[in-house]
């Protein structure tokens, strides 16, 4: 078995100058070439931070305080901005959540896509523009020759996200990080964008790191899933295994809380809720961070943060309950 394309080992991120505010507490992930890994979790779980850390684009005031990120057999110099520039856009492309805000309003579409090509390859402007037209065709935008002269505000949200995808794929990267790429879009547009990503993956053989809160997307898109809660990976499995036999109480709660067809029972509450809320970063409980919301929590859960073993980080995981 060859080495994974991207491997993150024990990644830690905290607020600068505040060692107590640990936003990521040792996250480990790996993606093989051509594979889709979904990272799923609710807001504040650290899934977006993980992707930004890989790109070396952590927001001001946050710092990586530990961990190794390897990409294509070499260490990724995530703290060296100049070195990372050669990776960003060229080896790793990224698509963000808000297509409406993702494009610079004062530059034409063609210029913005061509900018990536110019940044990483020595090509003439005409050659770059020709490639932009090809790319826009590839992401199935109508009339690409006209659209390269348009400004972002003339495009719909779905069209803009296609442009962003074209920018991310312009230099044929090995990995595409898609951070909630369709959360801001309508369901029908979401389906188009996801189908597009799926087709492009088939054509180009790129790996996709899909960051999302939507279990539906996970089920339909991903090969493997990592579930995150409060800055940790709490469970990881193949998609089929995760949905068939979720181990962590949080994963099970999340699946139960997600609406799905044909589940309603007369006279019963429509959804199964997880009680409580994610605690603020300053008010994290001792031991397992899910403990206050967990139905299964016992004494040990308050004492010790459970280690990640056999695909799950829980003292009371289903698999362990079965083997006393």
């Amino acid at each position: 078995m060859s080495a994974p394309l991207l491997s993150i080992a024990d990644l830690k991120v905290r607020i600068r100058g505040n060692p107590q505010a640990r936003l990521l507490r040792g996250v480990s992930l790996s993606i093989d070439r051509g594979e889709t890994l979904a990272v799923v979790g609710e807001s504040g779980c650290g899934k977006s931070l993980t992707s930004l850390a890989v790109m070396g684009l952590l927001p001001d005031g946050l710092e990586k305080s530990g961990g190794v990120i390897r990409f294509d057999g070499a260490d990724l110099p995530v703290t060296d901005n100049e070195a990372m520039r050669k990776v960003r856009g060229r080896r790793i492309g990224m698509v963000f959540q808000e297509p409406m805000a993702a494009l610079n309003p004062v530059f034409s579409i063609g210029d913005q896509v061509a900018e990536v090509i110019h940044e990483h390859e020595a090509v003439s402007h005409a050659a770059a523009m020709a490639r932009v037209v090809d790319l826009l065709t590839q992401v199935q935008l109508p009339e690409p020759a006209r659209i390269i002269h348009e400004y972002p505000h003339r495009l719909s949200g779905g069209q803009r996200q296609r442009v962003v995808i074209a920018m991310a794929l312009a230099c044929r990267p090995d990995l595409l990080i898609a951070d909630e790429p369709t959360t801001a879009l309508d369901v029908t547009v979401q389906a188009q964008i996801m189908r597009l990503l799926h087709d492009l993956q088939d054509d180009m053989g790129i790996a996709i790191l899909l960051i999302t809160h939507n279990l539906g997307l996970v089920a339909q898109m991903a090969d493997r899933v990592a579930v995150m809660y409060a800055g940790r990976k709490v469970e990881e499995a193949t998609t089929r295994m995760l949905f068939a036999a979720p181990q962590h109480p949080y994963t099970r709660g999340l699946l139960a809380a997600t609406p799905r067809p044909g589940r309603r029972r007369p006279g019963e509450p429509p959804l199964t809720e997880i009680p409580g809320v994610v605690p603020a970063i300053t008010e994290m409980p001792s031991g397992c961070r899910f403990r206050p919301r967990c139905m299964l929590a016992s004494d040990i859960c308050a004492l010790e943060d459970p280690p990640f073993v056999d695909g799950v980080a829980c003292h009371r995981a289903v698999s362990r309950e079965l083997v006393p």
Partner: protein
Amino acid sequence: MRSISFILRHWTTALGILLLAAVILMALTAHLVFPGDPYDMVGAPLTWPGESADTLLGTDSLGRDMAAGLFYGARVSLLVGFASALVAAIVGVLVGAFAGYYGGWTDDVLMRITELFQTTPQFMLALAVVAVLGPSVTVIILSLSAVSWPAVARLVRGEFMVMRERAFVHGCVVAGMSDLRIIFAQILPNVLPVIIVMSTILVATAILMESALSFLGFGDPNVLTWGTMIGMGRGQLRDAWYIIAIPGVALLLTALALNLVGEGLNDALNPRLKQRKG
């Protein structure tokens, strides 16, 4: 690094408060410290600062005490500054609130009027008002309010336009609340911090404009102001520049103090509560 800039920021606010307090103290105690008329001659003309123990800050070309002028001038500056800022803020808030909340033709009419006052060169308009009505403290306050309110109106209008589309305002309408109550009891408290910060800047601007009017010789002739002192000192620029420098520094420090306090208020009242994102 963060803590240093934090201290620095609060240090400047403290400096602003201190300076402003000093100016207010000068204004309040002017008649106690200098019981006589500041226009009276108290020493030899053109005594340099430090030259005589009686007049520490020196005397002007007519032998008037610079220090007394400084104290009495603070009164006029503060009175004109605060009074005109208050009038401008009230008018501006009313116009801006109604224009922004109601929109439509109300907004059109009110903003066209605001625009009239904004396109007219402000200082020229203030001069013209003083020229027509005659220079007195009241007229100067009115003229400075007349040129200052449009900026407040525009700011408040913008804030109200954003606020009226907030869901909580819709909720108030649905609960059956009256427009006036929504404008003044619901939206205004949210806009107030911005207005307060703007008002401190308005005070500073008004003080500077008043000094400009009296520098040109169109201030109230019955009171001594810092602008007047600078204007009368112009002839002695070559040989007695302190006559200009001293009231000028006083003006600069007062305006600076107000700006620093404004910045401090801005930090204190508008902590940018950025919403957490995924």
